[in-house]
């Protein structure tokens, strides 16, 4: 078994609204990312994917608050650490984050090299301009980005190039874990492929040790990651390898989600898309018991009676449902 880079145990974080209501956007999430592995997080919008990403890197600025659980990055426990301290000592070197609209994250009045200087000087105030330039040049070469980008303004770059530049900047200090939050959702397929290739290259070159990849595009997730976790209303409802999650989902929600995949392959046109009816629950008043119960086709009265625990299967597979694996498979067969 290889080294565990990131370990999260029962992490719970909440948003506090103006009216002092607690919204538990990440609810008892546990996960483990091993060295050299990438983990994907799938789910609808509003299910807590991005909040989980922010929580993992200790970015607790109001209205987001830390409640309980532990986050251990390569042996170092950062849970409950002061966010300013986290920013100085953890971000960039231990864990790095590519936000959703990374392309718009660049200040249009500054050159690319200035952003790199900012990142490096935040951790090493004594670094000289020349050192930084050399380092950046080397890294850009390795990642197939032209050197002239360093002296260009963000507006001079195309969307795909901007996205790749942002990724290169965020991994300049060789973080152990990279969290990529929808890195390619605003790009067309060709640039998307380039961005994905670059992320996988980073892993190959050992610049990043492991990756957490967040997206709602399931075919992409299937191709990029080793394991997939499906989130629903702040909870993890299923954890499996990419292949199992896509072709053999157990939880009814994952089943519905995988039924909504569209790819340009023969046979897709005859398959009926399964849309899950209804909307996710409002987490201000989370439902009793199973969060998915009110949208579930196979709901039983006992589903809403008690809170549902994760059931562990052999391998590293688990799912959150009251029914046994055999029962669910039987139900799907009869559909």
């Amino acid at each position: 078994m290889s080294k565990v880079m990131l370990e999260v145990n029962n992490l719970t974080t909440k948003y506090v609204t103006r009216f002092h209501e607690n919204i538990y956007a990440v609810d008892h999430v546990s996960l483990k990312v091993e060295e050299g592995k990438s983990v994907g997080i799938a789910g609808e919008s509003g299910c807590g994917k991005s909040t989980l990403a922010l929580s993992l890197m200790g970015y607790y600025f109001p209205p987001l608050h830390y409640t309980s659980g532990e986050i251990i990055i390569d042996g170092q426990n950062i849970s409950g650490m002061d966010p300013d301290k986290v920013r100085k000592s953890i971000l960039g070197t231990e864990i790095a984050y590519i936000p959703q609209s990374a392309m718009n994250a660049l200040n249009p009045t500054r050159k690319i090299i200035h952003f790199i200087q900012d990142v490096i000087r935040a951790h090493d105030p004594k670094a000289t301009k020349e050192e930084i330039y050399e380092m950046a040049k080397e890294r850009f070469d390795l990642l197939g980005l032209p050197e002239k980008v360093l002296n260009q303004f963000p507006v001079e770059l195309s969307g795909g190039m901007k996205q790749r530049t942002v990724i290169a900047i965020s991994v300049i200090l060789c973080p152990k874990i990279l969290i990529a939050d929808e890195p390619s959702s605003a790009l067309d397929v060709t640039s998307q492929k380039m961005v994905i290739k670059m992320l996988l290259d980073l892993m190959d070159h050992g610049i990043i040790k492991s990756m957490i990849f967040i997206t709602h595009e399931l075919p992409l997730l299937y191709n990029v990651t080793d394991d997939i976790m499906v989130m629903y209303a702040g909870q993890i409802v299923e954890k499996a390898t990419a292949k199992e999650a896509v072709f053999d989902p157990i939880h009814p929600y994952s089943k519905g989600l995988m039924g909504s995949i569209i790819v340009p392959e023969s046979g897709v046109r005859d398959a009926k898309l399964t849309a899950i009816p209804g909307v996710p629950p409002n987490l201000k008043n989370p439902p009793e018991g199973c969060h998915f119960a009110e949208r579930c086709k196979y709901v039983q009265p006992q589903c809403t009676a008690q809170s549902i625990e994760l059931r562990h299967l052999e391998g590293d597979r688990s799912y959150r449902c009251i029914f046994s694996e055999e029962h669910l498979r039987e139900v799907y067969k009869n559909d």
Partner: protein
Amino acid sequence: MTDGNDVVLSGSGLTKVFGMGRQRLTAVDHVDISFHKGEISSIVGESGSGKTTLAKMLLGLISVTEGEVYFQGKKRDISTQRKRKEYWKNIQAIFQDPYSSYNIFRKIDTVLLDCIKMRNGNRYSYEEKYELMSEACSFVNLKFEELTNKYPFELSGGQMQRLMIARIFLLKPKILLADEPTSMIDACSRATILDMLMKLRDETGTTLIFITHDIGLAYYVSDSVYIMEHGVMVESGCADDVILNPQKPYTKRLISDVPKIHEEWDLSTVTYK
């Protein structure tokens, strides 16, 4: 289905040129396109291929540099505001970003009431209007009682996009042009939205035109597919032919770039430009 008589909308030699002199840019270059009644067509291309410009010309939102648009066999005439309004009763659009499609100061009721007014004038009593609005909302699986007296920002993206379809249901246009209708919403609501658009086609006989960069989606929904590259139509035909047996290198590359689940996604061919 395609006997030439049931063409509702067509364009011949459509060209749009932006700027002049050194800045001159031909966004759409002599495109011939025709849409048949009740058919679903998709225009597919990467960003910057001119697909949205083509859509805007078909909608009459921007002028046509060269070429002509024919609507129901006749030359389209949108020279005056009144004629334009008449044209827009027949062709409607859903845009990419549901968040910016609404006037944030107006309630949802007003959006729907405007549509009823545009379609039927002022003939209805309030009860009848209420009836129509709830019918339209239930068509897209929304509850009108929950939406009334709300402002657009109180809805989620999927709900907003669905409300856009409810609006189309009230207007019952002959043609619906959907410009990237699902790119801002997640995969799960995407299935819902597509289901609703298909249902709309089946119930009202609307001709649907999808503008998209998502080839999987184009393949799933459409009868015919048009592929655009840099303003030029490179390949067109029946969806099965174009997607499963692409002829042109551009189409081949485009399709191989989409992540798939049954076939392997080849990343080794990627070269950084």
